[in-house]
């Protein structure tokens, strides 16, 4: 990095600009920083905090001046030499190794956690289960949004259908988890087709709005159909999954059968491996589908629907299969959620869930499988990490409550990722068929589909 001595005019200009900014900050901040009102005897007590006000103004002046001198006004901004955007080739190089490494870690994660954090293993395995659930949901939604390019803001509806299918089947017919799992997937897929029909003719924003409404309709129905779903009371006592008929309970279950000492952690490990296998099936099927004509048709649909029709592709059926298969995986994840929690209520299926799943897909990079993994770990794991920022108290004093800043930090992180990598963490596309040489396709070529 070479720094050129600022010319006098540059310095003067920068100081002037910084002074203006500081003045604005002083005016705007006067009532917030300088004056403080407290309820006192017989009215409000006014206290003056000149120190705080001056400090805030000074910080604005100094930072603005520094930015002016180093970035905004100079001909050689410092940021030019910083490689903010990691090049696609290095990322893909990492990507090649990353997949197997992550898979390896995921396969042994519970034991790794038990070895490294013997005291908090339950908590961490539970977190891993949560992250893995979102990875699966992200992979499921990736089929609809990433491959077929249909923006679905109501994906949580299928998650809810899957969860409630299992819970209700268990309640009314006493069907176990393994029997209910395929049925829940099938039911969710059916709902995917039912949702698909009205939205087929819609494009862009309209598609997004209708899917959003569908997600809310499902939740509201679950909330109000009291006799059937229990409404806001939810459904409790959902059975736990069994290991080939063996319950993971204290007496006469898994531990007795294998002659090991009972430990409640077994159930967590078992749940972890169930969701891991379910997620890997989702990934495997998606990767397979991408190389099949149907997957290629989804991507073609994302690129240009009219051209698809001119090539004899039934776009109606193609969209419906995308909705149905995406919904099916959502349903699988939903019934897993129900069995893990043991209790479900419509509270768990709000729009925020849809938004988080969609954010995972978008942050990870539309259509990228490994991107979804990274985004899930960052987003879900990140939120949890931010819950435990005790050390910040030592910096900002005992009054500082880090959990209150959780969403702020999180939002900031998302903005930063979107500024640096606007098309998601892994944005390049891998061709589904190769003639001679596999070349990555840059994100600027790839269309985003409807509603983005």
């Amino acid at each position: 990095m070479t720094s050129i001595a600022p010319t006098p005019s540059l310095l003067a200009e920068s100081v002037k600009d910084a002074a203006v900014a500081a003045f604005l900050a002083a005016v705007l901040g006067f009532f917030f920083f300088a004056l403080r009102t407290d309820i006192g005897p017989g009215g409000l007590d006014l206290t003056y905090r000149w120190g705080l006000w001056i400090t805030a103004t000074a910080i604005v002046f100094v930072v603005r001046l520094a930015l002016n001198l180093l970035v905004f006004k100079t001909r050689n901004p410092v940021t030019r030499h910083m490689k903010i955007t990691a090049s696609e080739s290095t990322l893909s190089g990492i990507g090649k190794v990353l997949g197997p490494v992550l898979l390896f870690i995921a396969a042994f994660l519970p034991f790794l956690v038990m070895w490294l954090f013997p005291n908090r293993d339950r908590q961490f395995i539970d977190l891993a289960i949560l992250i893995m659930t979102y990875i699966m949901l992200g992979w499921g939604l990736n089929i609809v949004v990433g491959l077929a390019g249909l923006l679905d803001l109501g994906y949580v509806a299928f998650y809810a259908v899957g969860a409630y299918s299992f819970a209700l089947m268990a309640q009314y017919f006493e069907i176990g988890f393994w029997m209910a799992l395929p049925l829940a997937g099938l039911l969710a897929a059916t709902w995917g087709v039912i949702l698909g029909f009205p939205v087929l003719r819609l494009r862009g924003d309209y598609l997004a709005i209708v899917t959003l409404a569908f997600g809310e309709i499902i939740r509201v129905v679950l909330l109000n159909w009291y006799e059937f779903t229990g409404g806001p009371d939810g459904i409790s006592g959902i059975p736990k999954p069994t290991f080939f008929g063996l319950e993971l309970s204290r007496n006469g279950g898994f531990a007795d059968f294998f002659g090991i000492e009972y430990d409640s952690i077994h159930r967590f490990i078992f749940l972890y491996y169930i969701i891991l296998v379910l997620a890997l099936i989702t990934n495997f099927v998606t990767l397979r589908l991408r190389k099949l004509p149907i997957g290629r048709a989804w991507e073609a649909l994302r690129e240009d629907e009219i051209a698809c029709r001119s090539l004899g592709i039934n776009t109606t059926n193609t969209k419906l299969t995308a909705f149905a298969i995406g919904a099916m995986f959502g349903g699988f994840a939903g019934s897993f959620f129900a069995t893990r929690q043991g209790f479900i209520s419509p509270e768990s299926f709000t729009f925020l869930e849809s938004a988080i799943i969609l954010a995972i897909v978008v942050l990870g990079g539309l259509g990228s499988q490994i991107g979804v993994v990274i985004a899930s770990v960052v987003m879900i794991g990140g939120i949890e990490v931010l819950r435990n920022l005790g050390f910040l108290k030592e910096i900002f004093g005992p009054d500082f409550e880090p959990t209150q800043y959780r969403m702020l930090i999180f939002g900031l992180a998302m903005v930063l990722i979107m500024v640096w990598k606007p098309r998601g963490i892994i944005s390049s596309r891998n061709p589904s068929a190769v003639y001679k040489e596999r070349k990555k396709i840059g994100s600027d070529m790839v269309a985003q589909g409807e509603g983005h």
Partner: protein
Amino acid sequence: METAMKSAHMHNWDENVVLSVEHLTMRFGGLVAVNDLSFNVGRGDITALIGPNGAGKTTVFNCVTGFYKPTEGRIVMRHGKGLQSEKIEALTRTGKQFDAEGDDRVFLLERMPDFEISKRARVARTFQNIRLFGGMTALENLLVAQHNPLMIASSMTIGGILGLPGFRKARSEAIDFAAYWLEKTGLIDRADDPAADLPYGAQRRLEIARAMCTRPQLLCLDEPAAGLNPRESTELNEILQYIRKDHGTSILLIEHDMGVVMEISDHVVVLDYGEKISDGNAEQVRNDPKVISAYLGVDEDEVAEVEEALDMPVTHAPPTPPANDEGGK
């Protein structure tokens, strides 16, 4: 008028018809884009549909390929030889879209949805403003065009997920077929490049290759030479001749470049204001006073004075801006 145009012997497009457009009318609200248009496309012919801007050529294309539903009229696609008039009349009365399986089926295109026209009636098309799958490689573009046979080979995806050998074979055959067309259009070296990365002329050729991968009996090209330089135009002519000769595919094209039209067309249909003003071989159309007046915007009386002008490529008619063919939007 029409009878006067024809020479004594019957033309190929009267006897051996692959597509016939009969009394086609297309209205958009009060606007009559195409008015009572009838013409035939001969099997194995290269037929050009020409006319000034806004004459309704692309509308005719969109009706033929099912992107518009015609207001009135009938569009018949024949896979078998001959006129098959009785069969078509019988089919028209039944209300069905096409007749039973066989090698000489007939299709009533105005009744069929767009994707069925490509899938069953084997009519493929390209677009005035190129519509490639930009983020997919050239090879992938051609594989998407083979969607329907590949879907059957993958037993509607299930066999494909399980990785059955039948699908693998079909897949490698599809890649070979795609490679064949990439070779023919001179794009084999760019097979693994995204379509959006290709130069303009190559994109035009890739779109034709993609249409050919649907194994069409009739290929409809909407201004294939628009924006091409003379060398690329010549290459395009060679490709079209090759498609016609070696694959027996009939070609219907819209074109503004008179050089291309006059050189390769067996049959030229001229439209103006949605109506047919001339129909015949290139020589007949070239000398038709109505055509000259439509193109040069002069009265028919003055045509004689400017007759020779049409030997030159028409320069006053630039390629129309991309519009109008947003089919189903």
